[in-house]
């Protein structure tokens, strides 16, 4: 009985502290089909680290997303929370993204992003299979705290 309790406590703690990965996709509104794939892990409730990759290129970005806990019930989208994401890439671009995410689990959502060159990006959330299929071997999310960040501020 004690061993079962130990096992259960260890597994539950590991699941709580690991967090969940949420995957998303972005399309740049261009003549070309520029598609990006990204992921963030909500270990903390309100803040998450983000990684972001462009398909078939060397470009990688990282940043932060912050959610607010105070939706106004009189708004139309009271079940969705606004979130703000800032990203910096290794070619110098900086993005500012406004998200609307479901309040309960932050899984499904959509967003709109702007570049410093005034390009527009459309963000949507996707499942894990689509992410892994498109970005197979570049996905390294584990050592995010140790790597150097692209966004300096």
């Amino acid at each position, binding site marked *: 009985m004690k061993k079962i309790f130990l096992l259960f406590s260890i597994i539950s703690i590991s699941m709580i502290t690991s967090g969940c990965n949420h995957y998303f996709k972005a399309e740049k509104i261009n003549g070309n089909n520029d598609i990006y794939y990204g992921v963030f892990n909500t270990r903390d409730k309100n803040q998450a680290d983000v990684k972001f990759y462009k398909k078939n290129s060397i470009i990688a970005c990282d940043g932060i997303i912050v959610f*607010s806990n105070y939706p106004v019930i009189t708004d139309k989208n009271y079940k969705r929370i606004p979130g703000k994401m800032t990203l910096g890439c290794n070619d*110098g671009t*900086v993005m500012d993204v406004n998200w609307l995410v479901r309040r309960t689990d932050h899984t499904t959502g959509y967003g709109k992003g*702007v570049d410093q060159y005034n390009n527009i990006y459309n963000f949507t959330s996707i499942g894990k299979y689509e992410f892994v299929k498109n970005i197979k071997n570049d996905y390294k999310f584990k050592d995010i705290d140790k790597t150097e960040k692209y966004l300096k501020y």
Partner: protein
Amino acid sequence: MKKLIIFSVLTILTTGIALKAFANDRPVLGNFETASKKLDLQDAGKNYDLKNYTPYLIAVMNRNPAPIMITANTGIVFVSSDGTVTPSESRRQFYLKNKKLLKNSNSMMSEYNLPLRFEPGKVYNIQVFAPAELANPVAVNITNVTFDKKRMCDINIPLNNVEEL
């Protein structure tokens, strides 16, 4: 002996790469109107950790004919009267330290943000947190800012210019 030489060369190179964002070889842009104000207890209140940081409110206006863009390498640097330069902490580290003040630090992350472009003729309000160890910073530099990607510049903002914003 060989290992010592290799180790020292590698450390010098890595520190050079890390400090590249804060190096001072870039020209300083002109044609900026700025005003700054130090936030006290009455203004800041309970929202910020005043033991470890001192907040400043800065207003910046671009008088150049073209807009100025921010890159991923922009940093914020505090200059003291000696001439010593200290880079500021990132917002992520600030958030992790003030995590228990969840509502207030959250609002700081979502409201106050460097604008992507400094359009000409507009006033931008920027909030900056200097470490409390610095006694009296004289100026703030926003580094690695461009008209086009070819040449990087700095913006120098003096902090003693106290006016009504």
